[in-house]
């Protein structure tokens, strides 16, 4: 299986969301996360949801894909809701049954927590669905590059992330091959207690690590052969440029946040 791993579930497309500068999207996501915790009323959340759903519609990404992402957190959302509803503090008691108490305040908190989680998941999904991993690393690198002047290794970080993304499928394939080979020699990766299973991982992990180090060595040599000497003075194939679209998105986020705080 030539593993087709779409990490971060990037869904290619040409929607306005796809065309936003990745830096803008990162900043918007950050603002959204802040905004989610600022919202403190039902109307505020309603506005928030409208915004996010409108963005989702704009992105052209099928709803079922986005709901799939929520699936993973359904349990956490439900748990949060239940915990806050039954064990939250408050004064106006609505229901009391044995040791369980539901207060109006508790219920309100529970609903808000659940809504927050949903918004967070939805919102960050929009980021990863409309931005390719390489655009994300590029965006992160550019955003952090001012900090490079005070010693923050923005370029190195981005390079590491990009190389990691590049090699994950390759290493996964290799791990698969190693597992099959060791299984052919009678290795058992499945049965046994925790200790036994940990020990059984050695014939898988050692070759994988050795191989990873060898790859790193060879890759470093190949990079140097192509004149790589760190981030200084590098130009880029793709230049990130803010456009009017990013400005509009920024304005819309500012409006959202204002409304959310005020309402």
């Amino acid at each position, binding site marked *: 299986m030539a593993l087709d791993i779409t990490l971060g579930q990037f869904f290619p497309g040409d929607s306005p969301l796809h065309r936003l500068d990745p830096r803008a999207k990162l900043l918007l996501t950050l603002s959204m996360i802040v905004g989610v915790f600022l919202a403190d009323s039902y109307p505020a959340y309603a506005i928030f949801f409208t915004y996010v759903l409108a963005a989702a519609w704009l992105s052209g990404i099928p709803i079922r894909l986005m709901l799939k992402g929520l699936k993973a957190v359904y349990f956490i959302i439900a748990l949060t809701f239940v915990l806050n509803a039954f064990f939250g503090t408050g004064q106006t008691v609505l229901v009391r049954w044995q040791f369980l108490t539901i207060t109006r305040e508790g219920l309100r908190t529970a609903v808000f927590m659940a809504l927050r989680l949903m918004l967070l998941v939805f919102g960050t999904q929009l980021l990863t669905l409309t931005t390719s991993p390489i655009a994300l690393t590029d965006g992160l690198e550019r955003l952090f590059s001012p900090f490079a002047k005070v010693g923050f290794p923005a370029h190195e970080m981005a390079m590491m992330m*990009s190389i990691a993304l590049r090699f994950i499928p390759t290493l996964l394939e290799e791990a698969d091959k190693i597992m099959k080979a060791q299984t052919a020699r009678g290795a058992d990766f499945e049965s046994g207690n925790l200790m036994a299973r940990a020990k059984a991982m050695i014939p898988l992990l050692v070759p994988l690590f050795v191989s990873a180090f060898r790859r790193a060595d060879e890759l470093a040599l190949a990079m*140097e*052969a192509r004149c790589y000497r760190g981030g200084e003075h590098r130009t880029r194939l793709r230049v990130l440029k803010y456009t009017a679209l990013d400005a509009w998105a920024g304005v819309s986020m500012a409006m959202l946040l204002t409304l959310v705080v005020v309402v």
Partner: protein
Amino acid sequence: MPIIEITDACYHYGEDKKNAVDGVTMRVEKGEFVAVLGHNGSGKSTLAKLMNALFLPASGRVVVAGLDTSGADNAWEVRRHCGMVFQNPDNQLVATVVEEDVAFGLENIGVPSPEIRRRVDEALSMVGMSEYARHAPHMLSGGQKQRVAIAGVVAMRPDVIVFDEATAMLDPAGRRDVMAIAQNLNREGITVVWITHFMREAALANRLIVMDRGKIAMEGAPRDVFSQVEAVRALGLDVPEMVDLAGQLRAKGVPLPEGLMTVDEMAVELCRLK
């Protein structure tokens, strides 16, 4: 002026007492297609890395495009003139998208953005991988990966490209593709140094250098080198099948001329003697 001039170069790895490259003197003229042949451990890969300043000679000199590789900071300039394609197709591709990888070298040397775009497209077209520009490297076959790697080097417009056993991990189709591209590049004026242990590939070069234990053991046109069957065998290498056949038939009194290497040539000669 030769594009690469190596004078009495020696190199040893770390704590090793023995020299991996032991007093090699050779030159490569512009436009040549030189093959360096040798068994594993003969020093051919080490020699390759001396040519683009990945290794610096412990003694002796390596001069590429007029630059001494040991000179302060020359290494980077040398690598702009002398590119290298490595053996493992995977371990030289650094980016998550093919065209980004081809652009890598250009980004490193600070080529302006629009020019990068142009050269990337040009290089990909040169190796026949244009339709894969936005693909992820791990989805490609070995031969395709090597072609992307070659594009990445070609885009930097070096004077000479060293292919360090670039076909060793490929299947026959991949090997043919890469060899064809190398020959094409040579026709367009790029000097090619082809490191290999496959004599079938070495036979396509203008000039052949055979290495053994860090030294140059034989040198000359492929036909001349291969006709010395015993010597080549003694160096742990093989001669092309037809050379072997011709030698054995000659030993039985069949008057075949020297220098027969291909099936075609052999068939023609045998028919003449029919």
